[in-house]
């Protein structure tokens, strides 16, 4: 299993600056394959690429796991029209999750996944239970895949349960739903067999350059208060580990989420600006 081969010096679990008490490693297990996160930080899917292309920005060894960009069964093209809009304190992304498709991604990147210093979680874009099962079956043959994160999108409780149930098997499953999803949907995903749940970016809309609405995922510091409010409610609702992010741009914000009940922290926009503000000192700082 991937995590077991990671040298101890590459598995920091101290919350960065080293003065705080370390968090214990987090282990998600199916009994057949284990996902061990030595630190509680993970990247949001789509922020560090498919195989660690962002090494120049982030010391991957500081993360507990590397989450790939979202992968669909078939290749996807970029969204048409505006894909990035900003607003005070945040930004909206509507990229369409362009990707080469799961099969091509595995062929191109599985070897690189095996070489990363941390476990790899493959983020899957799901549409139907049959498609979900096909994708997970492919990943079960890839030893470097330590976990899957299921991007469930905007679904109801029954749909969430169906998608998760189709994926439960050898690989630990993390069910991701957008911030703002009703708690019962998270609970349904957990009851269907997810080893953990994660809270993705909330959805929103902004007026685009042409006057029409552009819908997409919202990021930035303005999201943080909503994440902090959500984590306690979610903690009371599910009995599996909870990953949450949303607007975390400082260590204090990360600790607030952990104190609020989060088991893992999902970092997004800060990875493209000043990751050391959360992860602590590393070589990825301006010189």
């Amino acid at each position, binding site marked *: 299993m991937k995590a077991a081969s990671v040298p101890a010096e590459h598995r920091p679990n101290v919350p960065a600056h080293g003065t705080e008490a370390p968090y214990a490693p987090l282990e998600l297990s199916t009994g057949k394959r284990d996902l061990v996160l030595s630190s509680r930080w993970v990247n949001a899917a789509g922020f560090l690429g498919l195989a660690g292309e962002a090494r120049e920005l982030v010391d991957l060894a500081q993360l507990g796991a590397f989450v790939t960009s979202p992968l669909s069964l078939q290749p996807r093209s970029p969204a048409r029209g505006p894909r990035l809009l900003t607003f005070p304190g945040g930004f909206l992304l509507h990229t369409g999750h362009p990707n080469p498709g799961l099969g091509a991604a595995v062929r191109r990147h599985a070897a690189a996944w095996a070489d990363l210093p941390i476990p790899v979680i493959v983020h899957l874009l799901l549409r139907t239970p049959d498609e979900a099962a096909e994708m997970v079956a492919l990943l079960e043959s890839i030893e470097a895949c330590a976990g899957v994160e299921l991007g469930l999108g905007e679904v109801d409780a029954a749909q969430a349960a169906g998608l998760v149930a189709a994926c439960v098997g050898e690989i630990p499953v993390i069910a991701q739903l957008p911030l703002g999803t009703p708690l019962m949907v998270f609970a349904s995903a957990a009851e269907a067999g997810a080893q953990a749940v994660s809270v993705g970016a909330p959805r929103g809309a902004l007026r685009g350059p042409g006057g029409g609405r552009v819908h997409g995922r919202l990021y930035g510091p303005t999201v943080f208060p909503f994440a902090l409010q959500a984590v306690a409610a979610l903690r009371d609702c599910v009995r599996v580990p909870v990953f949450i992010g949303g607007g975390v741009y400082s260590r204090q914000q990360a600790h607030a989420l952990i104190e609020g009940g989060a088991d893992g922290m999902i970092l997004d926009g800060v990875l493209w600006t000043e990751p050391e503000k959360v992860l602590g000192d590393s070589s990825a700082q*301006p010189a």
Partner: protein
Amino acid sequence: MRRWLAHVLALATTASGTAAVRIGAAPGAIPTPGQVSLACQPGAQDPLRQVLVPIELLLGEFTCLQPEGVRWLPGDELDLLGPIGRGFSPPSDRARWLLAVFDLPPEVLSPLLTVGLARRVELAIWSEQRGAYPPQVEVLPELAPAVAWADYVALAVSPGGLERLSTDPGLPDLRRQARSVEVFYLPRMACGIGVCGACAVEGRPKHPRACTDGPVFRLEELLP
């Protein structure tokens, strides 16, 4: 590409009236003509880095268009990421350069203009906005005749202007008439490292990203 600590030296206004920022940075952080940089203010919790489009390049400093909405002041520190992407690479054997700017401040091609002056090539410029140019540069009222004259064409188009190149009946057919064309095309950029897809070019095979495959493209990459 890497991160650099830089400083705002001064705020300025270009000849076309556009706000600009002079930035001091290490020589390795200075883009080449056509490349860009991304910047945020250390400790400011900027949601994203801002895209810096250079309009003047010097040793140890560069001037860029001021990103919309920023309130940087002289003395402010900046965390630069760059230089980003692929810049202009005019063939060395071309002697008649045409620079044309669509829907952007004409200064975006000024760094390339400086290269042309240094190479002593014949230079002509066409822009929808008024600019100030050295006397060696001919300012053209019409684009079409110059396309036939030039042996190298550099275009700068806004994110919304790309389709004009193939659909505007008032524009010459660059694909047929021009010998060698490079296009500065910069959709809104988020990550700068090719992972987010925000600056992907629509409808093109392999969806090239402006941040890694551009922002200077060969014309045939954008208009196959």
